[in-house]
């Protein structure tokens, strides 16, 4: 029940860190299996809502996964089969996507986590701060710095 309800949501987060489907699915599976093996894990932290607590579990797994496996595999080659674009357009689109991924991947870890949680997962700043275990002001600062860095880098590179 829990898996069916939440697997898509946590897959989205894992995908933002892993950059490809199979690794993101493996991370989500591992997170749920850890919970299955030790159901008391969550009860030990009853103060937090399940989703908040599980966002923290998945985020930590993603960061561990990335530390173990460098460099980050940004995208696979499925763009080639995209028939909506001509080959040239698809190539251009692919380059843009890779460039954006590279810029986000180059952000400091905490800024990247803040960006993924707030911008891509739609968590409120308060929720994201709770997931990351930081104060609200610190979270806002991380988000702002991430966006400033991205804007500068993307402007520099056109």
């Amino acid at each position: 029940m829990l898996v069916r309800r939440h697997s898509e949501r946590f897959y989205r987060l894992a995908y933002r860190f892993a950059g490809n489907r199979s690794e993101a699915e493996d991370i989500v599976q591992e997170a749920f299996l850890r919970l299955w093996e030790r159901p008391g894990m969550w009860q030990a932290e009853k103060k937090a809502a399940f989703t908040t607590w599980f966002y923290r579990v998945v985020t930590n797994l993603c960061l561990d996964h990335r530390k173990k496996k460098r460099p980050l595999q940004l995208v696979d080659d499925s763009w080639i089969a995209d028939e909506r674009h001509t080959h040239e357009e698809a190539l251009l689109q692919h380059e843009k996507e890779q460039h954006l991924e590279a810029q986000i991947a180059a952000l400091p870890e905490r800024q990247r986590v803040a960006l993924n949680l707030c911008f891509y997962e739609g968590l409120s700043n308060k929720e994201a701060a709770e997931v990351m275990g930081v104060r609200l002001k610190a979270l806002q600062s991380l988000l702002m710095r991430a966006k400033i860095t991205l804007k500068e880098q993307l402007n520099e590179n056109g």
Partner: protein
Amino acid sequence: MTDTPEHDPALQALLQRRRFEPASPGLAERIIAAARRRPQIPSVRDWLGELLAEALQPKPAFALAAMLVIGFVIGGAMPWASGDQDNSLQSYFESEGANL
């Protein structure tokens, strides 16, 4: 609309274009199937709770074991049931026989 990074429409639009692949349709089923193959590890608190719950059950085996223990305790505490008493009784008959 201000032009700070927080509200920069160009940056927002660019970030929205980030690539995303949806999950495989059977992701939840795959996780459930993997969970069925893995045993659960109970926490120490759960394990102790189960142990106490078992111990508090008046099951026949538990009752029989308790009766045996009580029997041994009572038997050991009774002087007439000890081996020494048997020996002294035997020696009594022996001495009585000698007298007769």
